[in-house]
């Protein structure tokens, strides 16, 4: 029974006594510090080691387009696996139950497979260096400027959120000062990205991905042993909470008030699964940049498919600890605002709490290193993407078109430091946000959803015009901001925006994304029909039906990307049925 384990915690580990005294959860000993120090030493070494191989802009911003499918694929999924993912979704699992898994499965897998099979050929054969760069080739400078500026803005905000999450980990687990954590980690990231560019970021992301698994995997393994397996865990959650909606993914989505998230299946399928997910995984340059670094088209197509396989497994180390905490923790976690007011622990602290519960010295250091690595991979991804978009799509496109290659590389290095500084400023702003996750979801719906509408029409519809792309993107973004402001100033408007007064923040975000995407698509189509399209000859390499996709000659059937995409898709369906 959970209470027996609660007694065990109260009687033995130092964690709870420290918790009750309002101090940090744990103190690292010499071994833990050594584990963390080894990690910092190796990431900085990689930066210095790779500096010599990043002399041209192609090497600095695109890693020389030399990455294998496995490296690009792991980096693709690791850049997304920031501390926000680890801590935020573990907290969401505690708060909303297994519903949080939707953000890993329907909220990622179909979009990742679609990127690999359908979209990657156009990104890759157009030889673009960024998503705004693709918009430039397809729609001209207007759409490029709009997407580049909004992306740069979103990226530094995301980076700041990552930093804040990281500082919380350090504060909760180790009692470290917020400012110390923010500055030490951000300077390290700035150093290795500025030195080695995207290649260094990718190398570190692969290492960080492996570390995250090694450091975090023990929690669900030991947790399942403690509760006696998945069946017992489900039973204990039912007993503790007195409700079954925490352990079902789909069966409770028939109505907004039937599940703890206050969401309807249409919001999950269309808002999250179609718009937010496809928008993020197929047009957010933070992740797409990793795939563009692949050494050939086949590797570029396989990378998102490999990433999808690993992404599907991430709930095991993120969602499961949140569910285990519902069963084994002897106290209740609360929202961020209440936690600050009462001194209790918040949902976002569930993962560190579980680490402290199971990990002795050495392993605790490894777990903390995993969280630091998650933070760094997320931040490095944001910073390297920001640096590329700023240099190519804002500075190089509008301020200094004729600079030398060496100048752009120098700009990229300096821009990395500036991006980190802006992120640090953002981290201090985020401290005042009520909920980290809601904040990020709101940002996604502002920029990402309309961008997906613009890119997908540009790739699949020859008739889309320059004016259509620009005005569609602008109208979609404006709609998202307008809907957000409407609900913000008049909460009763939720019944219109999210189709129900029972809807909660996350449901609102999903529907806002859906509406903004639809407005973007409708405006793009209408304006395109009113304006002159480009000749088909100018769309070569950019649009389906106007491009010749290079043939891939695989020796065996099992080497084909479509085969592996099929395998992942079948697993995806099976998992959703199992946890229905």
């Amino acid at each position, binding site marked *: 029974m959970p209470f027996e384990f609660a007694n*065990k915690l109260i009687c033995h*580990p130092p964690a709870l006594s420290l918790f009750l005294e309002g101090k940090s959860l744990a103190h690292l000993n010499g071994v833990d510090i050594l584990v963390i120090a080894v990690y910092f030493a190796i990431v900085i070494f990689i930066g210095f080691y790779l500096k010599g191989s990043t002399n041209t802009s192609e090497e600095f911003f695109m890693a020389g387009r030399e990455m294998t499918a496995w490296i690009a694929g792991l980096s693709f999924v690791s850049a997304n696996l920031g501390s926000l993912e680890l801590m935020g979704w573990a907290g969401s699992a505690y708060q909303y139950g297994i519903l949080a898994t939707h953000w890993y499965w329907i909220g990622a897998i179909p979009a990742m497979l679609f990127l690999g099979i359908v979209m990657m050929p156009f990104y890759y054969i157009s030889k673009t260096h960024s998503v705004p760069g693709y918009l430039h080739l397809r729609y001209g400078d207007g759409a490029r400027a709009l997407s580049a500026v909004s992306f740069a803005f979103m990226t530094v905000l995301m980076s700041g959120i990552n930093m804040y999450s990281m500082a919380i980990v350090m504060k909760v687990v180790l009692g470290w000062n917020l400012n110390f954590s923010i500055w030490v980690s951000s300077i390290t990231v700035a150093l290795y990205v500025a030195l080695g560019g995207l290649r260094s970021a990718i190398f570190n992301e692969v290492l960080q991905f492996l*570390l995250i698994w090694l450091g975090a995997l023990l929690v669900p393994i030991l947790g399942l042993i403690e509760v006696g397996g998945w069946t017992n865990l489900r039973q204990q959650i039912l007993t503790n909470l007195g409700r079954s909606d925490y352990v079902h993914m789909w069966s409770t989505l028939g109505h907004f008030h039937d599940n703890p998230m206050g969401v309807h299946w249409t919001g999950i399928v269309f808002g999250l699964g179609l718009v937010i997910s496809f928008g993020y995984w197929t047009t957010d340059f933070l992740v797409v940049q990793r795939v563009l670094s692949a050494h050939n088209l086949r590797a570029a197509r396989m990378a998102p498919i490999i990433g999808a396989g690993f992404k599907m497994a991430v709930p095991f180390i993120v969602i499961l600890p949140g569910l285990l905490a519902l069963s084994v923790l002897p106290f209740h976690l609360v929202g961020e605002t209440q936690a600050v007011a009462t001194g209790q622990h918040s949902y976002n602290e569930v993962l560190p709490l579980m680490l402290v519960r199971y990990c002795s010295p050495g392993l605790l250091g490894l777990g903390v290193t995993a969280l630091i690595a998650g933070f760094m991979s997320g931040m490095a991804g944001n910073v390297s993407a920001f640096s590329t978009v700023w240099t190519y799509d804002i500075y190089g496109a509008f301020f200094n078109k004729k600079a030398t290659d060496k100048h752009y590389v120098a700009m990229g290095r300096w821009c990395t430091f500036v991006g980190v500084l802006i992120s640090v400023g953002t981290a201090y702003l985020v401290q005042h946000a009520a909920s980290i996750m809601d904040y990020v979801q709101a940002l996604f719906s502002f920029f990402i959803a309309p961008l997906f509408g613009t890119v997908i029409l540009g790739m699949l519809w020859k008739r889309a015009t320059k004016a259509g792309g620009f005005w569609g993107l602008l109208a979609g973004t404006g709609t998202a901001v307008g809907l957000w402001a409407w609900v913000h100033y008049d909460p009763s408007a939720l019944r219109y925006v999210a189709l129900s007064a029972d809807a909660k923040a996350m449901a609102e975000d999903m529907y806002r994304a859906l509406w903004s995407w639809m407005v973007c698509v409708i405006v793009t189509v209408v304006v395109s029909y009113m304006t002159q399209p480009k000749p088909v000859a100018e769309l070569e390499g950019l649009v389906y039906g106007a491009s010749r996709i290079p043939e891939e000659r695989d020796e065996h059937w099992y080497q084909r990307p479509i085969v592996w995409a099929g395998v992942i898709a079948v697993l995806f369906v099976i998992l959703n049925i199992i946890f229905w």
Partner: protein
Amino acid sequence: MRESMSIWFFAGVLFLAYGIIITAEGLWELAHPPAHPPVLFNLHPAIWWGAMMAVAGLAYTIRFWPRVRR
């Protein structure tokens, strides 16, 4: 002249270092149990987890050790 270091070599070195550190700590704790052990300490996860890391790290370090170019 050696070939450049692979990402997998870095991963191997890191795992090997961590494996050795964590296994050693686990063995030390076996001889000197902590006054306030974490939950399920009796399973000694540090020893088997650390040993697995060390073995995997050693294999990768050897397999991807930068070779001399001819």
